[in-house]
């Protein structure tokens, strides 16, 4: 329980990420680079400052607080500008920030030991037990921090608590084998059925992912595949057939289609990163009915939403 991991949120009473009442542990760091990513704060495996301008009163307490001189006020707007190269994630600026009643600055990503996380997630143990729920590891890519989550998951299982992870599968075979040894359910994200398109959308090779998926399926673990449906990337009829064929060939029996949404938009600005999907409208669940019907020709259970 000494291993540490970079956690950016522990969310309780989750009812859409696996069976029963669950707690989801969000870990930072992801090897994929999907341009539609809705959790941009999860991408880097280091703590990151976020500034919510709506809460910033431009008092510049943070400027004075930074020991590295890494913050200066913007000459035009007065909002703080961060030199992220200089940032050591010490949190001095966050401590100094008062915001408009709520802090404008937050530090996303906190180093926690496995023991600390275990203690936190066990607080809702009674609710898992009565609902058949448990703990879901999500991210980022949780399986990239296997040393950290494995002892937690093992302990949970020992107590009869259900474990799940949300993964994109872009990890080493070793890491996946470890995961198979301690997870009851894989929520397996699939971005595309075509290798080239996959590379283009995520900057990652698909082959390794599919190998890992086979590895899980061979082990007999339960897998639900999840497809983020992204306009202009994988939302055509042909895509539905393509996905359907792939899933069928792998022997997958359940898939969730997740409509593209814009909940993450504000976070890009707060992190000071450009967002490539800005202004593209969110999809309504009913827009996926066509895809659902097509995929039902290949897969036993197709559901819109998680």
């Amino acid at each position, binding site marked *: 329980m000494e291993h540490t991991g970079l956690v950016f949120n522990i969310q309780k*009473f*989750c009812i859409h990420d696996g069976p029963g009442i669950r707690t989801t542990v969000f870990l930072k760091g992801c090897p994929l680079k999907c341009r539609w990513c809705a959790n941009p704060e999860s991408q880097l495996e280091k703590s990151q400052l976020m500034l919510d301008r709506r809460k910033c009163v431009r008092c510049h307490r943070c400027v004075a607080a930074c020991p590295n001189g890494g913050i200066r006020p913007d000459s035009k707007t007065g909002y703080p500008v961060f030199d992220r190269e200089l940032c050591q994630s010490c949190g001095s600026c966050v401590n100094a920030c*008062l915001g408009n009643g709520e802090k404008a600055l937050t530090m996303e990503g906190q180093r926690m030991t496995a023991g600390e996380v275990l203690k936190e997630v066990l607080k809702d143990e009674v609710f898992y037990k009565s609902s058949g729920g448990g703990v879901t590891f999500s991210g980022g890519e949780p399986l990239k921090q296997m040393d950290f989550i494995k002892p937690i998951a093992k302990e949970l299982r020992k107590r009869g608590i259900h474990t799940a992870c949300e993964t994109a599968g872009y990890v080493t075979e070793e890491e996946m084998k470890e995961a198979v040894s301690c997870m009851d359910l894989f929520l397996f994200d699939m971005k595309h059925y075509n290798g080239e398109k996959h590379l283009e959308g995520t900057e990652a090779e698909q082959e390794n992912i599919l190998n890992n998926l086979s590895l899980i399926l061979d082990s007999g673990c339960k897998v639900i595949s999840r497809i983020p449906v992204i306009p202009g990337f994988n939302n055509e009829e042909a895509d539905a057939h393509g996905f359907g064929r792939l899933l069928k060939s792998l022997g997958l029996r359940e898939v969730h289609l997740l409509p593209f949404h814009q909940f993450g938009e504000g976070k890009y600005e707060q992190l000071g990163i450009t967002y490539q999907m800005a202004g593209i409208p969110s999809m309504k669940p009913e827009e996926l009915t066509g895809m659902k019907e097509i995929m039902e020709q290949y897969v036993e259970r197709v559901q819109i939403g998680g």
Partner: protein
Amino acid sequence: MNYFGESTKRIQSFREELLNAKAYISVERGILYTQAHREHRDCPIILQRAHCVARVLRDMKIFIEDQTLIAGNQAEYNRAAPLFPEYAMDWVVEELDTFEKRDGDVFYVKEEEKEVIREIGKYWDKLTLKDKGLAALPPELRTIYDLGIIKMEGSITSGDAHLAVNYDKLIQKGLGYFRDQVLEHREKLDLTDCSSLEKRYFYDASLIMIDSTVAFAHRFSSLASEMAEREQNEERKKELLRISQICKRVPQLPAASFWEALQSIWLIHLVLQIESNGHSLSYGRLDQYLAPFYRKDLEQGVVTEESACELLENFWLKTFTINKVRSWAHTQFSAGSPLYQNVTVGGQDENGEDATNPVSWLILKSVARLRLPQPNLTVRYHRGLPQDFMRECMQVVSLGFGMPAFNNDEVIIPSFVEKGVRLEDARSYSAIGCVEVAVPGKWGYRCTGMSFSNLPRFLLAMMNGGVDMTSGIRVLPPCKPFLEVESYEELFEEWQGTAKKIAAMSVMLDNYADTVIEKETPDILCSVLVDDCVKRGLHLKSGGAVYDFISGLQVGIANLGDSLAALKRCVFEEELLSKEEVWDALVHNFEGEEGERVRQILIQNAPKYGNDDDYVDRITSDAYNAFVQEIIKYKNTRYGRGPIGGMYYAGTSSISANVPQGGMTMATPDGRKAKSPLAEGCSPQHGVDVHGPTSVFKSVSKLPTHQITGGVLLNQKMNHSVLESEKDTDKLISIIRTFFDSLEGFHVQYNVVSRETMRAAQKHPEEYRDLVVRVAGYSAFFNSLSRQTQDDIIERTEHTV
């Protein structure tokens, strides 16, 4: 389309009529009561009171609405609030011209009646309960009363109630049975024993009340037959004749049918609402009492499920006609002019088996069809409550009018037994008013007690050396001011001392009020209908009930805990702030940049109750427990006079008191600004519970629930999306079950109206006339609430998925 189906045309029209009814103050009871009071000035008080109420029953205007199958009205018009001059008249006269201009709970007074009311006021000068109660208060307690730091105005300005009488026995045996009992016991009295005299007066008064109640029913019987003669519509004619027959028989005789049972209960309930204006007069476990009648009528083809449902809906509409006017100061504690007429369904039978029956389902359905603030519907939860019944309850919850509330047998029954209640009685408990509980027909008046103690305001006074921050008046003996306190342990020790003093003061105030009520306004019919008043010859306030435990009401539990935790963490442990910085900021209500800095540090650097954080949850529990453990040492005025108990325990069913008591409380160390609302019941302070409902349940479960038998009120607000699919509803049911089965939760209720709806209702009140929301342990029309209470409800944290 309502999941529960539509009401019949007549019910819809009756409902509409009542929704449109303007709430008047009805002077008639005031006139008749005063008349009789003058004529019977020579009588012992209890007999005088019987004559007064009997006069009202004899001479008041009665009517039978065109749509109704159940007869009986409380005042000249439906939704009019009768005048009860015997309790208090000063505020009525003072507010005569402002009732119409109130921010919430508006009442109308006819111009020509204002003079009559002033005249009645003159007669009652120095005669009312309030006059006598205030005169009886020693000066040091008068200060506490006047400051409202322990609020108890309601207890000496109106009646008691807060109980459910023996409706079960009533419909099985009839009022005649109770009359025989009175005669039998009167017979046994030996008047050479001077203690028998008071008993004789009580029995004589009881006979007057029983006979005038029967005569009152007969008035409706005659009226119905007169109306039948004139009626052109053959169907209606038949109904009126049936009403006439029924009112001839009940409540005097045992009820012979489902319809008669409802009419019998209604008439008694009504007379009790005319005898006294105490609220939270509850029906008890109506599903249990009515089940045999329903079963029999169904078998014999006398009713169908639909016709029985219509009768129940009719009964609830009648229930909704009852109204009560309170002083403006008191109104803010009970926003939405609630009567808290509770009906309880479900739970266990006397053997501990599930007691739900077809009438339980029917009551859910009938209440859900009407979606009105009355009755207040409670479901008794227990482990064996069927899942399909829970799902049906969730269907009601999803309608968004705050009902039903859930009370938990698994903690309430053992908690009663621990205090000396017999197991089979404990198993037949019902909710009374909001979340408080008692055994119907066996429990004394006002199980909540009388006084609302403002714990955060006392904390501030303590930090200020014993002087109230709001008024500058001393409310506690001198104690060490915060600036001189050296450690958190010392601070907490000061609080423990303070909590003891609050408990003592609240008991003293209750005892004074009880003593004066016992003498001045004994309730008679109500006593007859509670065991063992008749057997002992004692009315409720003099120790007639089988059980008599009462609780005070403690307000601001979460603010107390959060405040102490913030001081511990920020001042004593991490030294982020000095004592001087904190004190200065509190005194200046966190004003200015420096004040805001201090406030933010207090808010952001200390954990808050409601997030399953042991640090603050333990502090909250310990701080409240200092009061809880103290109050259980005290005895009420009935101790040793007959009842089992005669003791106090704690309770947090603080209704809407968190708003006005917050309004009188300066800035607190949890970062709450002066005059803003306190947290209600045992719920977390609004907006600080950021980890969702499971964490709130865990935090609440750390309180000493077994000792807070007066009720542990928890409001949760759910976004409607949580109840949209059956799968998600089952998950919500699962956390409720866990809260009750494993965490010993006492109570929970849900508000599922969205913030958007409520904001829209603030903008366009005319379009949301029938929007009912959960206030705190009860529901009220959103429009009837003051703006501040509306805002407070909107601010409550909404848990989404």
